[in-house]
């Protein structure tokens, strides 16, 4: 609730909800072209290849702007449905760039740069008078040298709060070829975030190739996350860069505790080959790893989820995400079982606030008092 300022400063309101996964879309595919230089500008930019069939073609059907532009491309509708709709004080944007599918590492780096210049102009610039949109530095991990340059170019931007990579990669992210990227991120106090990308990329979306159905793809892609997680810990990335933090976005989290138990047990016998690990593998969790909640697992008995939260140290590790405007959007008021207030505050706000250095209060703005009149496109023939 808004608090009256007593000293003449602008009134502030407490920050209570941070949404760690909202996707800003281009209004039209060629919008990105304006941010590319030749010879890249005249080329067709490889884009997401959708070979599986998500419900609703992947988006919330009530998130389509009235003018026919793509879901997630109208900042007013995002303000209405996310900032006002679920009451998010800040959102962390994750551009759906599908950079990892571009085989040419130079073209990939150019496209990453274009995404960043585009979002700095739009979502972090003219769309962002309230400063409540934060976002991620898009990099091409297939070109580590250029990725480092991009981090150096953009670190310090007030609204770019992390470095973004896709889940699909030619090697697990603990491998040494990626260390310069993590070094640069850590040096600038930026966490790295991993988000699922197009199922068509440098490696198939499951360890056994391309599953037959979307159901399988969507259930299984966290196996890629597991691979990156175990690799990052085993290769000593968090010993090498003690301030570095890594965020796993949209891979669920209920699998986290069991995989850590397994790795801890194996480490007791196999420690000798990885002596740089000074702690059991799970010891790196609370200090270095964060998970976003969405898509939250929904066990038949909701209390089981709370037990899982306890096992994974959710009070330190877990951060709320809605995944707006996608089909598997989670509403903070409806997606979770009743939680102790202190735990809910950690998950909904405090873990993300600490990770991204966001303030405990924010200035009250026009969105706090005035419902936006922007409407989503309606469906049906007699509206």
């Amino acid at each position, binding site marked *: 609730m808004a608090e009256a300022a007593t000293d003449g400063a602008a009134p502030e309101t407490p920050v209570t909800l941070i949404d760690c996964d909202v996707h800003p879309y281009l209004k039209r595919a060629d919008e990105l072209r304006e941010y590319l230089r030749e010879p890249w500008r005249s080329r067709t930019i490889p884009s997401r290849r959708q070979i599986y069939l*998500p*419900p*609703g073609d992947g988006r*919330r*059907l*009530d998130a389509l702007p009235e003018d026919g532009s793509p879901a997630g491309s109208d900042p007013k509708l995002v303000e209405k449905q996310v900032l006002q709709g679920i009451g998010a004080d800040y959102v962390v944007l994750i551009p759906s760039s599908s950079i990892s599918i571009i085989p040419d590492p130079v073209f990939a780096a150019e496209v990453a740069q274009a995404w960043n210049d585009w979002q700095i102009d739009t979502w972090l610039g003219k769309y962002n008078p309230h400063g409540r949109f934060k976002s991620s530095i898009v990099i091409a991990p297939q070109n580590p040298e250029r990725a480092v340059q991009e981090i150096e170019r953009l670190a310090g931007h007030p609204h770019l709060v992390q470095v973004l990579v896709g889940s699909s990669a030619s090697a697990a992210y603990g491998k040494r070829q990626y260390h310069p990227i993590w070094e640069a991120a850590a040096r600038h106090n930026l966490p790295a975030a991993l988000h699922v990308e197009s199922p068509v990329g440098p490696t198939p979306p499951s360890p056994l190739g391309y599953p037959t159905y979307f159901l399988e793809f969507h259930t299984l892609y966290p196996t890629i996350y597991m691979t990156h997680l175990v690799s990052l810990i085993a290769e000593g990335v968090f010993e090498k860069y003690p301030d570095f933090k890594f965020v796993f976005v949209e891979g669920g989290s209920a699998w986290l505790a069991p995989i850590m138990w397994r790795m801890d047990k194996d480490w007791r016998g196999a420690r000798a080959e990885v002596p740089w690990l000074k702690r059991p593998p799970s010891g790196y969790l609370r200090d270095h790893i964060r998970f976003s909640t969405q898509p939250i697992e929904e066990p038949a008995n909701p209390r089981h989820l709370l037990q899982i939260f306890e096992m994974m140290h959710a009070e330190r590790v877990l951060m709320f995400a809605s995944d707006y405007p996608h*089909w*598997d*959007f*989670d*509403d903070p*008021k*409806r*997606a979770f079982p009743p939680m102790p207030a202190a735990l809910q505050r950690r998950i909904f706000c405090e873990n993300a606030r600490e990770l991204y250095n966001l303030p405990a209060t924010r200035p009250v703005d026009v969105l706090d008092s005035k419902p936006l009149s922007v409407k989503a496109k*309606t*469906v*049906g*023939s*007699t*509206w």
Partner: protein
Amino acid sequence: MGRFVVCKVSELPPGGRRIVRVNGREIGVFNVKGRYYALSNLCPHQSAPLCLGELTGLTVSNEPGEIEWTREGEILRCPWHGWEFDIISGRTVFQSRNRVKTYDVRVEKESLGRLREGVETYPVTVEDEVVILEY
């Protein structure tokens, strides 16, 4: 039980839908091939606006790999998470305890005077047939 005049029959042709607000609750009224159905516009899963979803059919199968298309237009799919609801019973097509509230819909020839007795009225002429929601 209350009665709510949704619209004239001519305003809700087959394939059409309307969402009306009755006593503070949103209810979607559908015309599927000349039959009328009404469901709460609140998905029991995460409270999405269910009646904005796609009207579709039901895939059924006798053995893996075999697929048949049935009940076209009788399945309402949630616009968020894609859950399928039987528009007649309000139940999910998969086994669950989730059920969306359904309402009876009738078509009647109504006179304006009688409609005024109810909470809600809708301007119709004597000879109009209207879609009436019972709630």
